[in-house]
């Protein structure tokens, strides 16, 4: 991230969002809203005094509530640029008009409460979407406590605890009483592979990260014992299968095949009631901590962003690729590319690979002055068009627009967006819309000449 912020060919706009995209491949008109940080990027040295002295503490989103942050804060340790932002909702100055400690103490005079949001309009040749994923909320599972049990956490919570620069300083503790857990139960597929309360798909990354967490736990805290409830282990990557075996053989992780039906509190422990389908018996484990490997889901505003970009998404909100096998990094809309988990859950090697692929596909567009289009696109004859605009409604790519020719309202194809699917041609009642090279007359002519040949060779008999 730091490298990219220093590269002279890259302009990094942080704390900004795309709010409107018009145009088409090679010529996107993008409107970006730069949200106010209230800290001047050009002046701030990243010394951190403001953060240190800020009197307001709120639960940290990055630490999933396990720790606190200040009202002026950096989202996470390695954030780029190394400049804090003020949380307007919680800052004492913004809510009560008092305080201003950060401004008083800042040696670079970088605090500016008057900063306003900026709107930038720029032209871009290509867009790569890498908006990532978030976690499924497991509180829908009443049988796992419905979010009420403090010591039932997610894999991401454990990740924050294992981080030496995290909220617990690298100590894995029970959120309820801060004691160190001895027996830790991991439950795979919470919210994944579930047609009832969760999502039917497999989230791909959980088997591996759970094994990693079990290894780290044993490595850092040799007194712990990990139990992992799984249905199938998905370890289809280079050295992945061997990694799982290591977790079992060298780090003592016990893998139990079966889902967990219920978790309940007994005294200060958690009773995990599951099953071992391989021996055919119910099993109950007295756990100190339970870690749920929750499903990977699209960001909460993924569908909204899709509307802005005009790209399709599936029923979950994952962005749709142009072809599942042959075009995995291209969205259906030309010029917009997809990488990482916004398209579907991916691990790090796959995310890196797809990013490289998307980048080079984007470069393909940027390296040319002109783009060659597929000739098999639709066109609408304005003389015949009745202006009913039915074709506009049925075009899945929004490639038809309303226009005026000689004072008459007609439909017009935008050639760069058209995929040549033929929906408009099939819908058009006046035969004004046609896929070029495939007009009704052309097809009839082809059929007629085939019949003529067949008649000549006495393969068929035709009546007059």
């Amino acid at each position, binding site marked *: 991230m730091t490298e990219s912020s220093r590269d002279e060919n890259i302009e990094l706009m942080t704390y900004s969002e795309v709010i409107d995209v018009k145009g088409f491949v090679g010529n996107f008109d993008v409107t970006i809203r730069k949200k106010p940080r209230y800290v001047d990027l050009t002046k701030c040295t990243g010394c951190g005094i403001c953060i240190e002295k800020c009197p307001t503490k709120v639960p940290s989103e990055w630490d999933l509530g396990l720790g606190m942050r200040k009202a002026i804060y950096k989202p996470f340790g390695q954030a780029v640029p190394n400049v804090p932002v003020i949380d307007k909702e919680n800052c004492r100055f913004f809510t009560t008009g008092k305080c201003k400690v950060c401004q008083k103490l800042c040696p670079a005079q970088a605090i500016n409460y008057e900063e306003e949001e900026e709107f930038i309009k720029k032209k871009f040749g290509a867009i790569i979407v890498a908006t990532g994923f978030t976690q499924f909320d497991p509180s829908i*599972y*009443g*049988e796992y406590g*419905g979010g*009420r049990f403090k010591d039932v956490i997610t894999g991401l919570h454990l990740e924050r605890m294992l981080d030496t620069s995290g909220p617990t300083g690298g100590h894995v503790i029970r959120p309820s009483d801060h004691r160190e857990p001895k027996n830790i139960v991991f439950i795979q597929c919470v919210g994944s592979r579930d047609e009832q309360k969760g999502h039917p798909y497999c989230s791909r990354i959980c088997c591996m990260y759970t094994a990693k967490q079990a290894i780290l736990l044993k490595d850092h805290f040799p007194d712990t014992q990990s139990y992992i409830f799984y249905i199938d282990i998905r370890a289809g990557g280079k050295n992945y299968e061997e990694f799982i075996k290591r977790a079992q053989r060298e780090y003592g992780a016990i893998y139990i095949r079966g889902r967990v039906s219920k978790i*309940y*509190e*007994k005294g200060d422990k958690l*009773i995990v009631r599951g099953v071992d389908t391989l021996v055919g018996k119910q099993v109950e484990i007295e756990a100190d901590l339970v870690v749920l490997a929750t499903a990977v889901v699209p960001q909460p505003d993924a569908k909204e962003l899709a509307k802005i970009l005009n790209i399709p998404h599936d029923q979950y909100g994952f962005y749709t690729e142009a072809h599942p096998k042959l075009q995995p990094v291209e969205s259906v809309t030309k010029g917009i590319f997809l990488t990482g988990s916004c398209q579907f859950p991916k691990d790090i090697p796959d995310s890196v690979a797809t990013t490289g692929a998307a980048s080079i596909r984007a470069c393909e567009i940027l390296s040319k002055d002109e783009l060659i289009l597929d000739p098999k696109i639709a066109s609408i004859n304005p003389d015949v068009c009745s202006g009913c605009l039915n074709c506009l409604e049925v075009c899945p790519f929004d490639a038809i627009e309303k226009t005026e020719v000689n004072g008459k309202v007609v439909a017009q194809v935008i050639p760069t967006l058209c995929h040549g699917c033929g929906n408009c041609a099939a819908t058009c009642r006046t035969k004004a819309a046609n896929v070029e090279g495939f007009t009704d007359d052309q097809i009839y002519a082809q059929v007629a000449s085939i019949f003529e040949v067949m008649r000549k060779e006495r393969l068929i008999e035709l009546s007059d």
Partner: protein
Amino acid sequence: MQIGYYPGCSLESSAKEFDLSIQAIFKELEISLKEIPDWSCCGASAAHYLNEELAMALPYRNLLKAEESGLDQILSPCPACYSHLKHVHEEVVKDSHLLERLQNLVGGEYQKKVTSKHLLDFLKKDVGFERLKSSMKISLKGLRIASYYGCLTRLPGVDIDDIENPVLMDEILEAFEGETIPWSHKTECCGASLSLTRTEIALRLTRSILESALDKGADCIVVVCPLCQSNLDTRQRDINKKYGTSYEIPILYLSQLIGLAQGLDFKKIGLDRLIISPKKLLTQKGVTLSPSP
């Protein structure tokens, strides 16, 4: 207000106090309970695998009888009865062939106008918390209550509360200032259907429930099912004998606690009929003695 009443077979004998207390509290709330004339058994769990048509026809007869006597709503305290009556109604609404078949079997012409109501749902929605609160004469404050739902929320056709963590009973008790405790075995199975045929299983399951309630400091357990009550109360001494425990946890019907809070007579709400007597507990907690301000 008037509502049809389908007691079910248990409320005539082993769950008599459930019947008594419901009648008593409804009288206090000025709601008239009209027993369905000449009602018959709903078929419970035995019928539906032994004879599918019988399993439908038996509840159907009661819906018919209710409708014929001008009732459009029936209250069935027993969860199984409630589930069967509701389920058959829903099935005949969907399937006209089934309706025809049942009409041939049983007779009559069911107009599909009878709604089944569960006690909890009825108390919350039709009676309402305000009305319940205003009928309170004695506060249940100081009484730590574990609300036990059993399989109620999971029964087919029953959709009155969250399946894994129901709260209706707790809310009703809180309206009378009772202290309901969160506990882990709220919806665990008590082994009702096995109570006579595989008693040792019922004892094992019931024991876990008692243990769990005690673990969270419950003074008593409140139920809305005759079979749950029977297992937890009638068999409590058997459990003590088998497991060497010394449980003495009163198991009360919700309607009994409501009756208590309404200041109704001990006997009228059948509190003297419980095997594990609640007298000591209630006196200790000063519930029967202290009037609410």
